[in-house]
């Protein structure tokens, strides 16, 4: 075992990419869906284990891949949620097959795409080359487009198309920003691949042309910000979440938004290392605040349960972008913690919602009533999840939101006012909806469904545990990363 661990850590990066890639190739040809659902989860578990070895040993950065203190947080979180979502997906798709929404052929495609998506996201996080990062984010966008449209209903196709067009525009703007960064680097680093390698760029950051960097950051923030789902660039997000299979909604909300955010953070670091460039913080904080308040009000008018939680994702990505925009060790710490907690909680909520929608045969909020009576485990799971996502104590999100608010008071007291208003608006909306859905007069079928409660329970337990007690090693780790982020 020790020899195996040594080998894995020496070749630490490769398995994270090789396992999903090989699994995708295999799953494309595997006809039996039960077997492929298990293989899907097993491969995700192996990827998670490979990612954990990176915690012990970080390989030296190469020209294309890099493991540093910043991306390791994202990678571990990403592979963990990727694994639990695969477990949830195994029971979810069984039901979809039974009711005939998906066929065995669709599922082969679905599982292969799931692994390609994990591959693309891991590659985007690991990339040490801003060109490679761009290609990887494009790859993960394309795979999610295909997955969102998999039900082939007019609504699903429309959502996939909208996601596709808006995502492509975002991706195109991000490429323009990437070219500008290269042009800023070229006189300093010289022609050729050096001008795209992130470690080289950051080492020479102070001598890059600040004016070009400023212009580049605007394009990168708008481009990758589209993928983060920041208002007013969010229009694709609610449809993509609502019309696709629920495991994909969970992966989109919990992971893909973070991957795009990671790209923004990388370029923020580059600008922060150049004293003459504009401060990227205020731009991010503004977009974040706008998203928070906008999504908070939009939450009141939702009629579809998945759409409602999609807006809640916009709200939380807004809070995270705002926290990183405020900057400083405390706000960055809060941003990292909030990102982790949001990924865990939101995916848990989608796990619950997926099974609830299957049990009731609808996603309409008006038809979902009294879930704690008809489906006690799912209903109470949803209650706990919504209480956590709304920011009630003693869950982890309460703590991270509290930290965001208090660090804002310390640095920019005036901004704390709209921040708190936005948080309260969203809180009110979620509580209002939860009441009917969980405790109203029971409606619809109360047939039990075959559900996997473990992924949801594990996530919620982690969020609860983080709210009560954060282990000191985790705190030191996050503090260290927060300092890196300036």
């Amino acid at each position, binding site marked *: 075992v020790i020899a195996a661990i040594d080998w894995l850590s020496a070749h630490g990066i490769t398995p994270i990419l090789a396992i999903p890639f090989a699994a995708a190739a295999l799953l494309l040809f595997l006809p039996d869906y039960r077997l492929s659902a298990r293989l899907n989860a097993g491969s995700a578990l192996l990827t998670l284990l490979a990612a954990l070895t990176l915690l012990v040993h970080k390989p030296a950065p190469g020209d294309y891949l890099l493991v540093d203190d910043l991306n390791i947080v994202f990678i571990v979180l990403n592979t963990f949620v990727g694994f639990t979502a695969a477990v949830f997906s195994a029971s979810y798709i069984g039901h979809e097959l039974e009711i005939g929404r998906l066929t065995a052929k669709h599922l082969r495609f679905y599982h292969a795409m799931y692994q390609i998506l994990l591959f693309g996201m891991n590659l985007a996080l690991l990339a040490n080359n801003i060109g490679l990062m761009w290609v990887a984010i494009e790859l993960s966008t394309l795979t999610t487009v295909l997955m969102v449209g998999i039900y082939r209903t007019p609504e699903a196709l429309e959502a996939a198309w909208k996601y*596709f067009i808006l995502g*492509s525009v975002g991706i195109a703007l991000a490429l323009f920003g990437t070219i500008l960064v*290269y*042009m800023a680097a070229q*006189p300093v680093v*010289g022609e050729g691949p050096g001008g795209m390698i992130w470690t080289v760029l950051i080492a020479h950051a102070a001598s890059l042309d600040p004016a070009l960097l400023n212009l580049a950051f605007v394009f990168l923030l708008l481009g990758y910000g589209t993928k983060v789902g920041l208002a007013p660039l969010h229009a694709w997000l609610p449809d993509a979440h609502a019309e696709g299979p629920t495991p994909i909604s969970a992966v989109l909300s919990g992971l893909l938004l973070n991957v795009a955010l990671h790209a923004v953070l990388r370029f923020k670091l580059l600008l922060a290392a150049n004293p003459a460039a504009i401060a990227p913080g205020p731009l991010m904080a503004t977009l974040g605040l706008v998203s928070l308040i906008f999504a908070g009000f939009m939450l009141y008018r939702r009629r579809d349960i998945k*759409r409602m939680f999609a807006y809640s994702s916009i709200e939380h990505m807004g809070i995270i972008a705002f926290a990183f925009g405020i900057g400083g060790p405390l706000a960055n710490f809060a941003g990292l913690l909030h990102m982790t907690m949001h990924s865990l909680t939101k995916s848990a909520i989608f796990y619950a919602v997926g099974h609830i929608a299957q049990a009731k045969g609808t996603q309409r909020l008006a038809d979902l009533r009294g879930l704690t009576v008809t489906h006690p485990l799912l209903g109470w799971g949803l209650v706990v999840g919504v209480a956590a996502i709304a920011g009630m104590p003693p869950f982890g999100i309460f703590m991270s939101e509290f930290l965001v608010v208090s660090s804002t008071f310390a640095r920019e007291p005036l901004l704390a006012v709209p921040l708190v208003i936005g948080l309260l608006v969203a809180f009110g909306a979620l509580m209002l909806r939860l009441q009917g859905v969980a405790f109203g007069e029971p409606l619809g079928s109360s047939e039990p469904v075959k559900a996997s409660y473990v992924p949801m329970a594990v996530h919620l337990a982690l969020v609860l545990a983080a709210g009560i007690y954060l282990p000191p090693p985790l705190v030191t780790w996050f503090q260290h990363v927060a300092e890196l982020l300036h």
Partner: protein
Amino acid sequence: MDRLAFDIAHFLAGSLVLVSMMLLYQDRLSALINVFAFQAVVLALSVSWQAYIQNAPHLYLTAMIALVVKAIVIPVALHRMIRRLGIHREIEKALNVGLTMLAGLALVALSVVVVLRVTSEASMLAREDLAFALSVVLLGLLMMVTRRNAVSQVIGFMSLENGLILAATGAKGMPFVVEISVAFSVLIAFIVIGIFLFRIRERFDTVDLQALDEVREAQR
């Protein structure tokens, strides 16, 4: 650098912007496709000229891709497609030509001012190339928001992408240019297949679909 080499590069990049402006006021779909094919030819010429003056043979490959895929394959496919969908004679009515052209002019002026101001240290050729490239990108975006038809939106996206290729080839020695043009070709192939398979004729407004549902319900 040779004065003539500079002038030719300048002329080709400037032509791209002009063709982008022409795209803005085409109200017939088939004319729009033809103008787009013309733009792809100009792009191919411009990229090959850059390949020649920069001594970068791999850029010829990018030029070839632009010529074969964007000037021939895609336009031919789009022509056949709009005939099959029965929209080849359609005229876009909601287009306000005067206003769109004014907005386009403003965007070109904006990008020239912004780029020339921020790139005071770069070489003259790189600066002008970038200014033109940004104009083409912004004009493509403008086209995407002013059009209602999915096919014309896609043409807007492709002309936007022409601007990106221009920028990438203008940045001397940039790696991945060929790979990026291949990646974009794949993306565009996806889009074109998507339009055809799903018979998408109208654009999807950026409003939340739920708002549409509410309208439908209210009408009932």
